[in-house]
């Protein structure tokens, strides 16, 4: 993971001071959570998925949302963190505007306007300020995630009126008013606002509407519904009981599946599959089509949702479970008999070579080159993404030629990568990565099983921070038992929820959250519950200040 750490050192310092004070202050009423202070808030641009999901929730599932809007940026390994740093470029705004018009035309088409506009205009061919006001206020509240001000409404009623008159069509006028909501920074960015905590004026808390938005995008990956906004606008949401009840309601909703999928897709870099960027040599791996890659992603997400939400099982066992879902085309890559139709549940055989997410085609393909597996990339993925350990950047001026010349005496990746650990410049980092990655050498660049490379037997044995294994299954067990696995997932979900890396003072909170997670037997719902009720989710040191000026 790269060490790009913008942000305010003052805020971080403040957080440390506050925690030091809070450590003596005991705990609050929410289940023994330590009193801490969240790091700084910032505007968070909707990811392309959040944009589409929000439009669908507010204006209808049938709306076709243009897919190539401004791309998201991955910072510190998460699009969810990048969202706190990106803005809107000229070409990006052009695309947002074109998308807004396309969406507004669909939402107010003869077919869909009945569902989206609750009032009847006085005349379909002219302006009607009353009906326009009702539509703009209702729809705008869902899009801006708060009630619109009178000015914000009046300005758009005026657009609707002049456009309706110009175009001779009430709904065409409304289209432009709706477009003005969809291109507004109040829609494209989640505005996280803070206010002084009335119980302790020295502390800042998020406003109730900002909490509603955080909660909704964390659990649903979409905009709050009216019930959540009602609770926010009455201020009731800031009561612990109400917040807990709303969190439970959101988690119980069918929309929660989109939320958990969004988090794991972000963490596991599945966006690369969505964008067609996980590519394999077509001559070498003709089976690896875009459809197959999409199926592979879907397999892993279905496995995660079933395991964590439907079955409510221990998160750590995602790395050992043999339960999954397949399609016939995936079955042929796995070389297992799968006679089902489109999708069906499947158990990998007890005596077979596969168990856990890291034996899936999706992750094995993402962490491989187009024509070859990569023990280094796979080890890096496990260290950085699953164990939250930093790997330093490779040094410059390295002769890589011996590592990948398969024509000579060195036939397996283990033999070739031996050079990494006998070369001092390489060993520092590669001893952290390669041994883990070699555990997966039985899976080629698309995750198909093999026992030999270039005619030599593959040795997949190794040792993960003290626990030995013989193959990928043993590696999965070692990962499941690793002391950093749970804390790393807590840290990643926290970063995703608050849109930034933790500031130093938040470590005590992360430790607490991980203890709660462990106490629950690593049940996903318990982690979400503890997180959304924590000070890290509800408070902030202030607003993020600009980085030091670059000369």
């Amino acid at each position, binding site marked *: 993971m790269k060490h790009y750490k913008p942000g305010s050192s003052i805020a971080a310092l403040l957080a440390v001071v506050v925690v030091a004070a809070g450590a003596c202050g005991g705990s609050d009423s929410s289940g023994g959570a330590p009193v801490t202070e969240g790091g700084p808030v910032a505007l968070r641009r909707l990811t392309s998925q959040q944009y589409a999901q929000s439009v669908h929730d507010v204006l209808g599932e049938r709306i076709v949302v243009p897919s190539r809007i401004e791309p998201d940026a991955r910072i510190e390994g998460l699009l969810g963190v990048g969202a706190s740093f990106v803005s809107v470029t000229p070409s*990006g*705004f052009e695309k947002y*505007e074109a998308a807004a018009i396309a969406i507004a035309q669909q939402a107010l088409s003869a077919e869909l306007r009945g569902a989206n506009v609750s009032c009847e205009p006085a005349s379909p061919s002219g302006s009607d300020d009353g009906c326009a006001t009702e539509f703009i206020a209702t729809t705008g509240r869902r899009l801006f995630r708060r009630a619109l001000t009178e000015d914000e409404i009046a300005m758009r009623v005026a657009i609707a009126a002049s456009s309706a008159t*110009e175009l001779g069509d009430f709904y065409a006028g409304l289209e432009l008013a709706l477009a003005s909501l969809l291109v507004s920074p109040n829609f494209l960015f989640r505005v996280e606002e803070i206010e002084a905590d009335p119980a302790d004026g020295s502390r800042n808390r998020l406003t109730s509407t900002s909490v509603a938005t955080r909660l909704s995008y964390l659990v649903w990956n979409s905009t709050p519904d009216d019930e959540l906004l009602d609770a926010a606008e009455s201020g009731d949401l800031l009561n612990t009981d109400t917040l807990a009840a709303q969190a439970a309601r959101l988690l119980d909703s069918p929309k929660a599946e989109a939320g958990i999928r969004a988090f794991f897709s972000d963490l596991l870099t599945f966006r690369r599959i969505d964008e067609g960027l996980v590519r394999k*040599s077509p001559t070498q791996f003709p089976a690896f089509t*875009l459809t197959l890659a999409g199926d592979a992603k879907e397999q892993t997400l279905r496995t995660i949702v079933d395991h964590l939400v439907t079955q409510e099982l221990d998160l750590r066992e995602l790395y050992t479970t043999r339960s999954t879902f397949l399609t016939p085309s995936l079955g042929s890559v796995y070389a297992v008999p799968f006679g089902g139709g489109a999708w069906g549940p499947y158990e990998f055989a007890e005596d077979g070579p596969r168990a856990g997410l890291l034996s899936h085609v999706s992750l094995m393909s993402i962490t491989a080159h187009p024509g070859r597996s990569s023990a280094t990339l796979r080890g890096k993925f496990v260290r950085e993404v699953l164990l939250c350990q930093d790997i330093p950047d490779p040094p410059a001026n390295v002769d890589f030629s011996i590592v990948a010349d398969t024509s000579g005496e060195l036939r397996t990746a283990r033999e070739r990568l031996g050079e990494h650990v006998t070369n001092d410049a390489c060993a520092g980092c590669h001893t952290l990565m390669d041994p883990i990655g070699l555990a997966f050498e039985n899976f080629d660049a698309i995750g198909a099983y093999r026992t030999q490379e270039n005619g030599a037997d593959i040795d997949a044995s190794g040792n993960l921070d003290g626990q030995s294994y013989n193959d990928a299954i043993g590696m999965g067990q070692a990962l499941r038992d690793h002391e950093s696995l749970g804390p790393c997932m807590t840290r990643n979900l926290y970063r995703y929820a608050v849109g930034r890396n933790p500031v130093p003072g938040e470590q005590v909170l992360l430790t607490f959250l991980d203890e709660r997670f462990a106490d629950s037997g690593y049940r996903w719902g318990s982690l979400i519950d503890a997180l959304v009720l924590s000070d890290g989710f509800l408070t902030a040191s202030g607003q993020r*200040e600009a980085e030091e000026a670059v000369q």
Partner: protein
Amino acid sequence: MSKRINRRTILRGAVAGGAVGMGLPLLDCFLNENGTALAQGGAIPVRFGTWFWGCGMNPARWAPPTEGLGYELSVELQALDRTLSSGGKVRDHVSVFSGFDVKLDGNPNFPHGSGPASNLTGLFAPADGVFGAASIDVLIAREIGGATRFRSLQMSATGNRNHTYSRESATIRNASEISPMEVYARIFGPDFADPAAGEFVPNPRWTLRQSVLSAVKDDRDKLMSRVGTHDKQRLDQYFTSVRQLEQMLDVLLSGPPDLPSCRRADDPGPDILEGEVFQNDLDSVNQRHRALADLLVFALACDQTRVFNMIFSSGISELTVPGLNTTHHQLTHDESIDAELGYQPQATQFVLASMEAWADFVERLASVPEGDGTMLDNCLVFANSDLSYAKPDDVRGLPTMIAGSAGGRIAPGMHIRGNTDPVTRVGLTVQQAMGLPIDAWGENSLQTSLPVSEILV
């Protein structure tokens, strides 16, 4: 040509020593009364572009053996030997800069990241993939891009929108267009005012769209008062982008461009990106590159933009050829140096292919007549790569080239040896040629106040 006022002279005279990166408005004397189109139809705009290829070259085989005008072509620059239909060779329009270094001063050499970051900003890379400031194309676009429909156009033949070296700031990237079909729709779709279409009738929706944008701008002050300085910068960027779209609508309302070479491009047809298996082989990439370049040339001929960025292959080049189970980037690290040849033969085929693609691109610009010459005479295209010798990720002797005459501001067709001077000398030259009021550029060992004066007219 003699009628044109040398704008660089004016700007440098007017604001000598002015702050770096300050965008100056176009001087009124160049504009018509709407401030949207060049006055006296027929005045030819000067354009700036970048052209990027990944994974560098073999320094000893790439650098021309002789210096100055009419330089002798090296083995890896044979592509520039092509004869242009407008006369002369590609070489006569392309200056080559060898031996100019990206200095690191002890900063990390992020593989494939440090070279472009320093070459395009004059600053050390703060982190992998992060630039220290806005990139050179954005600095120039802020200067000359404001009067056209698009401030700038970014394109990549790689199929990945994230392949871009254009930065508004350290973390804000200008994404690339990857689909010829989408580029066509964006530039030559229904909003394009075709000069051949008869009487111009403005679309009433353009004015209504402007009213939508003014409503958005009314949100500005309230939002600004509620955020910290980090977000103020981001919102400033957002509202700059809103203004650019207002500008676009102004240009649309002012009617079709009045340039003799302007006409609507041909529809490139369905997209080859949509197939089940993505093709990175040279033939497919060349096909996408040519399709994008053709659309770009038509866009330039109609003055739809004056700034562009084209990426042929990315820093971690994924180029391949049928039958090869690896990529250009992987080969640069993996392939052994052939003992007899003294270089990596497989990896080197992609260097040669990249130079052929560069020659293709230059040739296309030279194919459009403009004024007494061709469009190429009114362009400055800054070609650059991320590395020199890619095997060890070397950034010393980072290869750059400049094609075109920038409307008479550049003397083309020279080979200049840098002798380990900082690569920022070339970037400074480019900015001065494009009229930026800048006397010095870069930080620490990358700092220079010495343009490559041999090529400045």
